[in-house]
């Protein structure tokens, strides 16, 4: 692997819930190489979005962090003033709901060119030209007309492409995408993902792609990290997650999803519900729902260990390997 662009090491985040500090991320570690795409997959409340917000320095007020988030030799958590602005220039974000993230009372053109004109001193005319060209890159042909429109005049899919084009205008080195296609129709999702993937590879950007969909992450990411209850339980090459998962939770995610090509008698549904980090019991947070849990699983948090080039937090990872592979194979 190349030199990491972004390196998160044992990140712990507490946020205020009804005035009380609650742990939402527990010792999250990940690294992202130059031009690499990493998927971060989990259910709601797993902490995947909080990880992105911590990296983007957009944690909610009152949040406390420990551990490090390293970018370009500095800890992102302590950046200030010009250094913070430079960092923000390098990192671009795309969120789930484009409508909430674009100022509704300003024109698309204002939104697209704001950073260029304010931070890079590009003149109005040039900025508009570049914005129109960027729109063409994401498959929006009549860019000049779009620049004159307001956000409410565009559909969700179109607006999300505008956001992506805008983020790419400033040539960031790292793109954080938090469920960018969840609100879109499947055919639109396929298109937006294709655009995102294509442009990212063209420009050699690193991507942290957050989603609840294991398959979607697998489609555009080299590696995928699976989160449960505020920790990363498994990080592995995307392709291998489906065939040879290391963590029982990953296997559960794979088998619970109904397939398009055939129906099963019963889906492999594990009981209980997913918990947040602060609700998790001692020991492995997944242990209460895990079909493979033994007494030792309830004792202490499993450390992250390397297995077959992947990183997994399960004390039984080695002995379960074959069995989990069978489970998912039976499903597929």
């Amino acid at each position, binding site marked *: 692997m190349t030199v990491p662009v972004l390196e998160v090491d044992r990140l712990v985040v507490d946020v205020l819930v009804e005035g009380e500090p609650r742990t939402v991320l527990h010792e999250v570690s990940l690294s992202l190489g130059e031009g690499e795409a990493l998927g971060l997959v989990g*259910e*709601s409340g797993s902490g995947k979005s909080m990880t992105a917000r911590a990296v983007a320095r957009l944690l909610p007020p009152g949040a406390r962090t420990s551990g490090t988030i390293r970018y370009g030799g500095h800890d992102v958590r302590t950046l200030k003033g010009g250094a913070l602005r430079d960092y923000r220039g390098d990192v671009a974000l795309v969120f789930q709901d484009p409508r909430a993230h674009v100022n509704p009372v300003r024109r698309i053109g204002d939104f697209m060119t704001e950073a260029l004109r304010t931070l890079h001193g590009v003149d109005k005319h040039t900025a508009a030209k570049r914005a129109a060209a960027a729109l063409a890159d994401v*498959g929006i042909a009549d860019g000049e007309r779009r620049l004159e429109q307001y956000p409410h005049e565009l559909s969700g899919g179109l607006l999300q492409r505008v956001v992506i084009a805008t983020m790419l205008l400033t040539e960031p080195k790292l793109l954080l995408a938090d469920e960018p296609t969840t609100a879109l*129709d*499947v*055919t*639109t*999702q*396929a*298109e937006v*993902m*294709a*655009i995102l*993937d*294509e442009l990212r590879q063209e420009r050699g950007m690193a991507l942290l792609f957050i989603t*609840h*969909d294991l*398959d*979607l992450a*697998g*489609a*555009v990411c080299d590696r995928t990290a699976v989160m449960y209850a505020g920790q990363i339980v498994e990080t592995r090459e995307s*392709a291998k997650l*489906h065939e040879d998962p290391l963590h029982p939770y990953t296997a*559960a*995610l794979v088998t*619970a*999803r*109904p*397939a*398009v*090509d*055939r*129906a*099963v008698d*019963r*889906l*492999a*549904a*594990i*009981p209980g*519900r*997913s918990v947040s980090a602060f609700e998790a019991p001692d020991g492995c947070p997944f242990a209460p729902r895990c079909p493979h849990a033994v007494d030792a699983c309830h004792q202490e948090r499993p450390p992250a260990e390397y297995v077959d080039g992947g990183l997994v937090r399960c004390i039984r990872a080695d002995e379960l390997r074959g069995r989990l592979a069978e489970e998912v194979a039976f499903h*597929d």
Partner: protein
Amino acid sequence: MTEEPVLRVTGLRREFGGVVAVDGVDFEIPRGGSLAIVGESGSGKSTVANMVVGLCAPTAGTITACGRDRSRPARSAKERRLRGREVQIVFQDPYASLDPRHCAEQTLDEVLRLHRADDGKQQRQARVAELGDLVGLDARQMRARPRALSGGQRQRIAIARALAAEPEVIILDESVAALDVLVQAQVLNLLADIRERTGVSYLLISHDLGVVRQITDETVVMRRGRIIERGPTADVLAHPRQPYTQVLRDSVPHAGWKPTRALRALTEGAQPS
């Protein structure tokens, strides 16, 4: 000629201020059957669901459930109750589907009092407990306010409420779309069990082909207010005849899938608007 279908829809049409949202929709569901209406936003699938359940009136066309016409708004209280015993619905959003001030027991009791006026308090209590059992909720959850429950638990209450009137058809309007994948699997299994045990029919409204494949026998595909393809679910998904259906299927992420830009272009070309 087989048995009369439990739900029959013919020539259904709905306009909203001159915009045609649904046009010429026909389908029927046999007793105990399960039909999916598949489509993307704007396809008109939710409007069809709302018309069948009686939340909006068709501009034209007929809807017959259990042999009785329900194309026009109900005129009497009795008629409304009768229709309530024919078709019920489970909505998408588990957080807004329940009155925040009522626990599951109160919600179910209200329905039972309406539909089983002759039952005494004890009979109703027994039936509430039975329904709770059926959807897998314990006594504590049955007495909890919705805000204290998870999305999956709330959706179970919504299913129990739909079952309380013992309808012949339940419309599942994206009922599992808002649930996380593990909870979704639990609820899908529950829905399969319920159909087996009660013989109820499903009309599933969904954009999720995996879900459609799992719990329906027949599928119709809607686009821009019209049905463009229909058939047994397995056939439609395995061998789509329409390019749009094919695109829809190929857009679903799966292991080894790669998104491509060409998909949209193909659909635009295949069916110019």
